[in-house]
C-alpha cells in the first residue's frame, strides 16, 4: 500500500493512540504523560505540515473502506480539510502546553488528558472526513469526548452545564443524522465533491432538498452556536480554561462551522444553494447571530462569559462569509475559521491566566492587572484589537476581505452588519483594556499565586504570547503563499467555479 494513502490515517492516529496510552497511565506519571502529549502533538503537526505541502502541489491523500453496505468510511486530505486540520494541529500543541501548566496539581489528570486527546482526534477526523457519513461519525465522537471535559470538576454547576451541553448537541446530532439518512436515500453516496451534487436539479426535488438543508443547518448550527441553538455555549464556561479555549477556538464551534462549509460547498454546491434561495435565509440567521451575540456580550460581568458570547457572534462571520456570493467574500469567511481560532484561543488563555494567577473572574476585578501581568495583558490586548478588527491584525484581514467581497456583489447591508458588530466589539473589549492598563488597583487580588520571577507559570505564559504573535503574523503576511488568507483563496479557486 502506498504510504501517502495512509497519511490522513496517521494524522488521526497520533492523538487516538495517545489517548489510549494516556488513559492507561497512572495518575502520578507527570513527566511521561507530558512527554507523550507533546510528542504526539508535534508528530501531528509534522504530518499535517507534510500533507499541506502535498495538497498545495495538487496531490490528494485518501483512505477508504466500506463499513455498512452502501456506506463508506473515507479519510481524505484536500485543501479545505487542511485549513481546519492545520489549525487544530497547531493549536492542539499550544493548548496541551497550556493544559499541562494549568492542571499542575489537580486530580484526575489521566482522565482529563485521555479525553482531551480523544477530543482532538475527533476534531482531526472531522477535518479529514471525506464524506458526510464519516463526518457524522467524528461529529458525534466529539460530543461524547468533550462531555467529560466539561464536567471535569464534578461540581453541581459543571454537571448541569454538561447535561445541557449533551442535550443540545445530541439532539442536534439526531437531527443531522435524520437529514443525512434522508439525503443518502435520495442521492446515494455522500462523498464531498467540489461543486456539490445539485448543479441541475428537478423542480420536484426542491422541496425535500430545502427541508434537508434546514435540518442540516439546525444539526450543525447547534455546535456552531447559531442563535437560537447557542444556549449551551455560555454555560459550558464552567469547564477548565484549556477546555474552554479548545471548545471555542478549535473543536466544537468550529466543527459546526466547518460542517456548514462542507455542506454548502461540497454537498449542495455554492451555486445551487444560492439558486434555491438557501443562502439568503442562512445569511439572515448568521447576521442576526453576529449582532445578538455581541449585544449579549456587552452585558456580561464575568470575563469568560463575555468571551463566550463574543464567540457566538464571531463564529457566525464564517457562516455569513459563505453566503456572500463572490470569491472574495467566501474567502473572507473561510479565513476567519483560522483567524477567529487564533484570536479566541489567545483571549481564553489570558482569561485562564488571570483566573489562575490572580483569582480574577469578573471584569471589574481586573483593574491594574496590566502592571501585574504585562505579558498576558499584551496578548489579551492584541486579541481584543484583533477581534475589533484593527489593522494589521488577523481580524482586520477577515473583515476587510468580507466587506470588499460583499460590496463587489452588491450586498451592502453586510458591510453595515460588519460595522455595527465592530462597534459592539469595541464597546465590550475597550472597557476591559481600560481597566487592564489605565485603572489603578484598589483592592488586593482575590486569590493570588506566585511562580518565581515570571508573572505566571511559564507553561501558562508562552502559549498566549505565541498565539498573539501568530495573529500578528497572519495579518502581516496575508498576501504571501501559505498564509491563511492565500490558502482560503486557493480553496475558493479550487472549489467554486464562479
Amino acid at each position, binding site marked *: 500500500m502506498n504510504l501517502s494513502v495512509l497519511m490522513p490515517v496517521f494524522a488521526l492516529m497520533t492523538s487516538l493512540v495517545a489517548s489510549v496510552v494516556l*488513559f492507561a497511565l497512572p495518575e502520578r506519571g507527570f513527566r511521561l504523560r507530558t512527554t507523550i502529549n507533546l510528542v504526539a502533538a508535534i508528530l501531528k503537526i509534522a504530518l499535517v505540515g507534510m500533507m499541506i505541502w502535498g495538497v498545495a502541489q495538487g496531490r490528494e491523500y485518501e483512505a477508504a473502506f*466500506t*463499513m*455498512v*453496505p*452502501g*456506506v463508506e*468510511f473515507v479519510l481524505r486530505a484536500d485543501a479545505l480539510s487542511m485549513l481546519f486540520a492545520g489549525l487544530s494541529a497547531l493549536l492542539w500543541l499550544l493548548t496541551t502546553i497550556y493544559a499541562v501548566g494549568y492542571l499542575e496539581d489537580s*486530580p*484526575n489528570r*489521566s*482522565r482529563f488528558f485521555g479525553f482531551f486527546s480523544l477530543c482532538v482526534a475527533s476534531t482531526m477526523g472531522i477535518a479529514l472526513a471525506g464524506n458526510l*457519513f464519516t463526518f*457524522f*461519525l467524528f461529529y*458525534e*465522537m466529539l460530543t*461524547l469526548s468533550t*462531555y*467529560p471535559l466539561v*464536567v471535569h*470538576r*464534578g*461540581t453541581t454547576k459543571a*454537571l448541569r452545564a*454538561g*447535561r445541557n451541553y*449533551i442535550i443540545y448537541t*445530541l*439532539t442536534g*446530532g*439526531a437531527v443531522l*443524522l*435524520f437529514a443525512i*439518512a*434522508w439525503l*443518502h*436515500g435520495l442521492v446515494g453516496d455522500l462523498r464531498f465533491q467540489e461543486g456539490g451534487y445539485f448543479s441541475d436539479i428537478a423542480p420536484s426535488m426542491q422541496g425535500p432538498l430545502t427541508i434537508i438543508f434546514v435540518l442540516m443547518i439546525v444539526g450543525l448550527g447547534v455546535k456552531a452556536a447559531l442563535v437560537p441553538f447557542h444556549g449551551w455555549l455560555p454555560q459550558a464556561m464552567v469547564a477548565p480554561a484549556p477546555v474552554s479555549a479548545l471548545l471555542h477556538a478549535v473543536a466544537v464551534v468550529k466543527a459546526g462551522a466547518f460542517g456548514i462549509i462542507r455542506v454548502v460547498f461540497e454537498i449542495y454546491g455554492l451555486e445551487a444553494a444560492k439558486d434555491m434561495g438557501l443562502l439568503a435565509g442562512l445569511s439572515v440567521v448568521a447576521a442576526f447571530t453576529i449582532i445578538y451575540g455581541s449585544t449579549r456580550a456587552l452585558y456580561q460581568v464575568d470575563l469568560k462569559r463575555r468571551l463566550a458570547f463574543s464567540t457566538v457572534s464571531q463564529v457566525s462571520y464564517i457562516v455569513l462569509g459563505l453566503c456572500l456570493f463572490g470569491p472574495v467574500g467566501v474567502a473572507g469567511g473561510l479565513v476567519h475559521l483560522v483567524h477567529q481560532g487564533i484570536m479566541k484561543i489567545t483571549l481564553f488563555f489570558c482569561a485562564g491566566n488571570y483566573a489562575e494567577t490572580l483569582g480574577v473572574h469578573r471584569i471589574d476585578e481586573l483593574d491594574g492587572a496590566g502592571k501585574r501581568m504585562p505579558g498576558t495583558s499584551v496578548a489579551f490586548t492584541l486579541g481584543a484589537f484583533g477581534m475589533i478588527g484593527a489593522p494589521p491584525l488577523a481580524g482586520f484581514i477577515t473583515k476587510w476581505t468580507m466587506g470588499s467581497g460583499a460590496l463587489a456583489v452588491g450586498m451592502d447591508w453586510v458591510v453595515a452588519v460588519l460595522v455595527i458588530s465592530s462597534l459592539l466589539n469595541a464597546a465590550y473589549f475597550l472597557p476591559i483594556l481600560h481597566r487592564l492598563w489605565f485603572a489603578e488597583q484598589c483592592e488586593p487580588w482575590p486569590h493570588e499565586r506566585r511562580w518565581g520571577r515570571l508573572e505566571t507559570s511559564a507553561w501558562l505564559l508562552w502559549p498566549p504570547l505565541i498565539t498573539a504573535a501568530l495573529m500578528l503574523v497572519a495579518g502581516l503576511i496575508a498576501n504571501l503563499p501559505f498564509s491563511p488568507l492565500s490558502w482560503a483563496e486557493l480553496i475558493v479557486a479550487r472549489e467554486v467555479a464562479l
Partner: protein
Amino acid sequence: MTLWLMAGLLFTPLAWAVLTLLLDFSKGRVVTWLGILVQVLVSLGLWAAVASDGGFLYLLGGWQAPLGIELRVDGLAVTFVLLTALVAAACGWHASIYLDPGKPWHRYFWPLFWFLWAGLNAVWLGGDLFNLYVGLELISLAAVGLVALGGQADALRAAIRYLMAALLGSLAYLLGVALIYGQFGTLSLAGVTELMNSGDVQSGLTFPLILMLLGLALKTALFPMHGWLPPAHGIARSPVSALLSALVVKASFYIAARLWLDLGGHLGGYVLAQLIGVLGSLAVIWGSWLAFRQVKLKQVVAYSSVAQIGYLFLLFPLTWGVTEAISQQAQQGITLQVVSHALAKAAMFLAAGNLIMSVGSNRVDALAGVSRFLPFSLFSFGLAGVSLMGLPPTGGFAAKWLLLQASLASGQWWWLGVLLAGGLLSAAYVFRVYRASFIEATDTDQFYHPSRSLEVIPMILALLSLGLGLVAEPVLSVMSLPFEGAGP
C-alpha cells in the same frame, strides 16, 4: 464434518451439564473452562465451514420430522451460534470469578449454564417447529433456575413470575404448532413453507401464526408484556443478567422472525405488521423512560433491554409488502441490532456488576466518585452505552442506519422518529449514570476494587460491540448466506 460440528454444538453442552451437576462449584469451574474452550472452537469451526461452503439442511439420523430432528444451519444461524459462544464464554469466565463458591446454591450455576447453552444452540440450529419448542423450553427452565440462584425471597419471587410468563408463552406457541401440524401434517419449517408456496394456501392459518407470535412476543418481553423482565434481569447475579439479556430473549425473537420471514408473507397482513411495529416503538419509548427513572443501577440496564428489544420488532413492518432489497436491508439491520445489543448489553451488565461490587450499593446515586476509582469499568459501561445509543462507529449505529434506510425506502417514514427518539432517550439514561459517577461529593471513599479480569471482560465485549460497526460489511456477508443442499 459440518454434521459433527452441529451435533457437537448440541450434545457437548448437555454432556457438560450432566458432568458439572455431579461436581461442586470450584471443580465445576475447571471442567467448564475446558468445555467453553471446546465449544468456542467448534462454533468457530462451524462458522468457518458455513462461511466457505454456505448453509446446510440436515436430517439427523435420516428421519423426517416429527420423528427425527431436523437441523439446519445458514449464515444467520451460525452467526448466532458464534455470538452465543462469545457471550457465554465471557459470562462463564466472569461468573467463575464473580460468584462466591461458599454460597450453597451457586454450585447449580454450571449445570444450568450448560443447559442454557444447549437450548440456545438447539434454537439457532433447529429446523422444525417442535424441536424449536423443545429448545425454547430448555432455555426457559434453565433461565428461571439461574434467576432463582440468588436465593433471597425477592429473587425467588422474580423467578416464579418469570416462570409463569415463560410457560404461558410456550403454551401459546405449542398450541400454534399443534394447529399447524393438524393442517399440514408436517412440522418442518421448510416443508410448511414449501406447501404454502406450492399454491394450496389454507386460509385458516393466520390464527395459529398470530398465536405463536403472541407467545413468542411474551417470551421476548414485547411491550406491554414486558412486566416480568426487569425484576428477573435486575435481581439475578450480574453474569446471569448478562446471559439473559444478551441471549435468552433473543431466542424467542429468533423463532418469531424465522416464522414471519418464512410464513408472514402468506399469512400476515399489513395491519398485523404495523401493529407489531407500533408495540415495538412503544417499548422503545416507554422502556427508555422507565430506565431513566430507575433508582437501582441494574434496573436501569434491565429496562434498557425492554427498550432495545423494541427495535427488533420493526422487522415485521419493514419486511412485509416491500421489495426484496428493502426486506434484506431491514433483516440485516435487525440482525446487527441483535448482535450488537447482545454484546453491548452483556458488557453493560457485567460492568454494572463491577461498579455495584465496588461501591457496595446498587443505587445509581451511590456511584458518586467512582469515576476516579473504577474508570475502566465505567468506560466499558460508557462504550456499551454508545452502542445502545446508536452512535457511530458502533454496531448499534450500523443497525440503526440500515433501519433508517429501510424505513425511508419503504416509505414508512414514521419509524424514523422512533429510531431517533430512542437514541436520544438511551443517551439520557446512560448519561444519568455517568453524571452520578462524576460527582465529587465525598472526601473519604470506601471503595472495593474488583479483580482485574472482572474489569477486562466487559471491556472486551464493549469493544467488540463498538468494532462491529467497522466490520459490519464482512459480518453481514456471512450472515446473509442461505442454507442449501439436501431438503426433505
